[in-house]
């Protein structure tokens, strides 16, 4: 004899029926795929190799782009300084020290 106070195990059939009814409601009015298919094929016809621009505006690609630009700037800086010889380094040092002096120079 079962204990009436004990909670009943969930009925899998009831869950399946619930899921089927909910799925039918959710998909109602969205079954026609002809317009979706036409829209996708039309966009493909315009440019088959296109990449949605929004894909590159997510945090990871933007961070990678920023890191890449910083690296390029750093490398360019190291390449640029020797072009002026020792005098170029002195000028940069003087400018850096000048920023520390009140009033600057």
């Amino acid at each position, binding site marked *: 004899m079962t204990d009436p106070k004990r909670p009943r195990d969930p009925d899998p059939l009831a869950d399946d029926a619930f899921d089927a009814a909910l799925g039918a409601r*959710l998909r*109602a009015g969205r079954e026609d*795929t002809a317009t979706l298919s036409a829209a996708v094929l039309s966009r493909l016809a315009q440019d088959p190799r296109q990449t949605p621009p929004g894909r590159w505006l997510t945090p990871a690609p933007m961070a990678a782009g920023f890191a890449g630009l910083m690296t390029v700037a750093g490398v360019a800086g190291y390449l640029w300084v020797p072009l002026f010889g020792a005098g170029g380094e002195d000028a940069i040092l003087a400018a850096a020290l000048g920023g520390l002096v009140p009033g600057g120079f």
Partner: protein
Amino acid sequence: MTAEARAKGASEAMDALMRGDRLALSRLIALYGPGIRAFAAHQLGDASEAEDIAQEVFLRVWSEARRYDPARGAVSTWIWRIAANLCTDRRRRRAVRRFLGLEAVPEAALPDDAMPGAERIVAGREQMRQLGPALAALPDRQREALLMRTAGELATAEIAAAMGLSPGAVEQLLVRARAGLRRTMGEKDDD
């Protein structure tokens, strides 16, 4: 259509797609388009944005078809993972835009007006008015799992693979989601 027949059809369409057959994309859209539309509409709460996401999913399927590896999962898993990731990205970007005041809160997702018969349209809209907020009230992961099961008709193992969870964890999410939805809809019926 049975799950096996759909999986077989998807696998054949994917093979054709990898060979560059664009019409195969239409076959995949026929198989997964309605479910992904419904999923996106209730993940984003906006029918027009859902249409945009559905298009983006299948454009991504086309452009990355060569990267699909059957050994790593079923076609359905791969496509639904793309859909779930796109919805998550869109929700995050929209949250930032709303935080910055650049975007207003949209109206609830409604089915298209393409349904035949005015009564059916009204009935469908009324059902969705009740269902939309109830689904929106569920935690994100529970709603995602429930929508994949109901709108996408995915099996537990497919949902688990698409969400990167164990089948047991998915079952837990589904049980909680159903309970939450029944409770919310029951409260609405009592009003």
